[in-house]
């Protein structure tokens, strides 16, 4: 293809995106668009799958049957989200095996939040309330993103998320109203999960390398800082309502901005965890790799069985 032809294709492509015409798998797209989408969608899928691990830790220890069925259903949903997203990502011409290999080798990332441990039952409340809450804020704008299969997967995901956040908030609410030990447990979980949740929106706009391009392709509709502010403004009154305090001494309502001012974020911690030095990075990947390797005989067996049936059918 000549440079001029490429330019024409690119211009037509950018115009389509500007006009809100969705890009579908077989449509022409710039290589950079394809690569960026593979990176973002797979990272999103991996986050859903790895995200099952900290919560899975508490399924057998849920304090009641009601809590247990809810948590089980939530974790199962996260598996579903991972699968919708892998499926969307594969339409860009990468195989499931390649995607998993990238996760297992550490060349693909997943959300750093899942590298923190779940120490008490209250952590399950904090995760649903804060982590799913932050995820919802990140995901809602993606229902209108430019790549069709990604946008459609996000519509499904968003429909399912709101119960996740509610079940988490309900757990926190109950603990906060309970005995002093229970309330302390809820407060401790909020103390540990607050800042990592704030960091889920990514680096500040000044530091973020992908924002401009992502905005153009509608992979992002608001900046990291805007989304973070939205999360804080929405969550602080919820904490107040159940009598828990947000662990930020600088947090203050700003009448002029009609928003909360908040204290400095420890970005060193953020980058440490991103680079693999969080409390559970190794454990999470080892668990995923072990699950994949231990499941190999099942995958092979199923294929052998399918092949045998094919042969019988042919006879």
């Amino acid at each position, binding site marked *: 293809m000549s440079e001029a032809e490429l330019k024409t294709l690119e211009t037509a492509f950018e115009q389509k995106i500007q006009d809100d015409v969705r890009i579908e798998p077989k449509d*022409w797209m710039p290589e950079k668009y394809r690569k960026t989408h593979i990176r973002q969608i797979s990272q999103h899928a991996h986050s859903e799958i790895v995200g099952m691990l900290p919560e899975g830790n508490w399924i057998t220890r849920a304090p009641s049957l009601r809590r247990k069925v809810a948590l089980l259903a939530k974790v199962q949903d996260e598996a579903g989200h991972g699968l919708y997203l892998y499926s969307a990502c594969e339409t860009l011409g990468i195989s499931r095996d390649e995607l998993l290999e990238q996760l297992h080798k550490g060349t693909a990332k997943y959300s750093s939040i899942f590298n923190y441990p779940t120490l008490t039952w209250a952590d399950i409340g904090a995760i649903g309330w804060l982590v799913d809450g932050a995820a919802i804020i990140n995901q809602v704008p993606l229902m209108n993103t430019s790549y069709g299969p990604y946008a*459609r*997967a996000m519509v499904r995901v968003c429909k399912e998320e709101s119960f996740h956040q509610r079940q988490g908030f309900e757990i926190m609410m109950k603990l906060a109203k309970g005995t002093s030990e229970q309330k302390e447990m809820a407060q401790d979980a909020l103390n540990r999960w607050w800042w990592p949740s704030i960091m889920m929106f990514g680096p500040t706009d000044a530091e973020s390398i992908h924002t401009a391009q992502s905005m153009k392709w509608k992979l992002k509709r608001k900046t990291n800082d805007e989304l973070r502010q939205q999360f804080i403004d929405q969550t602080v009154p919820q904490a107040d309502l159940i009598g828990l305090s947000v662990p930020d001494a600088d947090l203050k309502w700003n009448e002029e901005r009609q928003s909360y001012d908040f204290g400095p974020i420890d970005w060193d911690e953020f980058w440490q965890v991103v680079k693999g030095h969080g409390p559970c990075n190794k454990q999470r990947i080892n668990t995923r790799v072990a699950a994949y390797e231990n499941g190999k005989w099942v*995958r092979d067996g199923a294929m052998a*069985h399918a092949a045998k049936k094919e042969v019988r059918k042919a006879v």
Partner: protein
Amino acid sequence: MDNSWPIWEVFIRSKNGLEHRHCGSIHAADEKMALENARDVYTRRMEGVSIWVVESKYITASNPENNGELFEPAQDKVYRHPTFYNLPDEVKHM
């Protein structure tokens, strides 16, 4: 050896009276597992009353590069639409 499970496209009828609609794909070793996986992945909240699965390699898709020759000829066939025909105002319900 590449021994990974093939991809299947999943189509769901959300209720009787509506057509099956494509909703995504799954991996499975055979058609029985494909149906079971499609059920677990795409109908956890009563989204369907019927599922079709078909191995993706059996789907033939048109190429968007040919959209001009495929779909543009329909654009100048205005006489296929009722608004092309002029009727006297007295004629109602036609």
